[in-house]
């Protein structure tokens, strides 16, 4: 068998023997740098934008417009039975780590002299009998969650722009930007935020943003057996929550702080903060 003759690739003669091109000076170099960076700028500005347009078209909630909604939450404390279904549903829906709560239920035992508040495991397993060392004259449950304030202390203190309020009235945390400094955890007067031990970023109630933007109710509202928790849209004229805010005597938690909460409470006791 005859082997084909092996030879090195031939370098074209004209390149090797070409005379050096003119203009290899500083000026030429700077001009080239400018041209290159200009091209890179065009690439950076145009490239990702085109890519984003394609990606968002495929995702769910494309038909959703946040300016058409203004959400509000209503809690009727006189109806709550302290079953903890909401806390369990929230944990299942949002994969909340054990021992941390995006929503929880508190029990108040109030007497003329003193008040006792308990919330065993956030009320996740329900409530048992309670003994207090004073004469309790009334007792009731109060579900708590992020108040989605309009004048939020938590967003104000965020140093990296991770916390923000959407146009439909939901306070969210961008886990990609959050650096886990926990300023917002300290700033929230309602204790609604925590640092996740898994992601080391701030987490909080989102009113189940992945549900409400699809027309569903938050998981806690979905499972509440007594109608204690209600979720509504203030931009719908006949919304039950809107009607309650318009016509009933409602309260908000820690109104003196002027955080302008979007969670409203019916039959709120003065002891509740």
């Amino acid at each position, binding site marked *: 068998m005859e082997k084909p003759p092996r030879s090195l690739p031939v370098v074209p003669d004209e390149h090797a023997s070409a005379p050096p091109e003119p203009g290899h000076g500083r000026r030429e170099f700077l001009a080239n740098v400018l041209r290159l960076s200009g091209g890179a700028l065009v690439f950076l500005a145009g490239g990702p934008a085109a890519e984003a347009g394609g990606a968002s078209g495929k995702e769910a909630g494309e038909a959703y417009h946040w300016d058409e909604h203004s959400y509000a939450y209503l809690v009727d404390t006189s109806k709550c039975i302290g079953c903890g279904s909401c806390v369990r549903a929230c944990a299942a829906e949002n994969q909340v780590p054990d021992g941390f709560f995006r929503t929880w239920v508190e029990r108040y035992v109030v007497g003329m002299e003193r008040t006792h508040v308990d919330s065993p495991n956030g009320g996740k397993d329900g409530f048992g009998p309670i003994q207090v060392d004073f004469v309790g004259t009334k007792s009731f449950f109060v579900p708590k969650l992020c108040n989605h304030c309009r004048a939020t202390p938590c967003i104000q203190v965020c140093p990296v722009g991770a916390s923000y309020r959407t146009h439909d009235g939901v306070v969210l945390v961008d886990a*990609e930007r959050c650096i886990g400094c926990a300023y917002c955890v300290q700033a929230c007067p309602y204790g609604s935020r925590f640092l996740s031990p898994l992601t080391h970023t701030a987490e909080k109630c989102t009113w189940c943003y992945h549900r409400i933007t699809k027309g569903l109710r938050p998981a806690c509202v979905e499972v509440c057996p007594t109608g204690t928790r209600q979720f509504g849209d203030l931009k719908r004229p006949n919304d039950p929550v809107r009607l309650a805010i318009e016509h009933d005597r409602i309260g908000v938690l820690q109104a003196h702080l002027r955080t302008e909460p979007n969670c409203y409470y019916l039959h709120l006791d003065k002891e509740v903060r």
Partner: protein
Amino acid sequence: MEHARHVVRVVLLVMVVLAVAFLARGFLVPRSYGMYGPYRYDNVREQMNVRRPAHAGPAACEQCHPDEATARKAGVHRNVSCEVCHGPFAAHVKEDGSVVTPTVDRSYTLCARCHRKVDGRPAGFPQVVLEEHVSGPVEGKVCLGCHNPHSPKL
């Protein structure tokens, strides 16, 4: 003309610095940051699609379990969602369509969460002190022995 060359050099240098700054900004500042405020707007879309909703509501359960749904709607548990006792829909019907049978707590513990008499519950809500509710020894008695959870009124 000799002096003009110095000016040109400085202007060129400034332009290079500006170009590098713009280039660095393009890399460092997220694309949608500042569209509506000092935050990344893309995160709004991300939060919308963060995961599949786990709770589907009684209407979803009704499609395969019409008998239980009818009984529930006729009884006093008509406002109690299936998922309160049975757990979230997503744990039962997986994303690929496969079905996992959820475990249901059939003990007194499940019913006690709502119906055990404890301080704090509204006076009008049906609550039970087990010792007063059943005659004889309490041990071994389960609520489901007498009550149908989908329509518990006897």
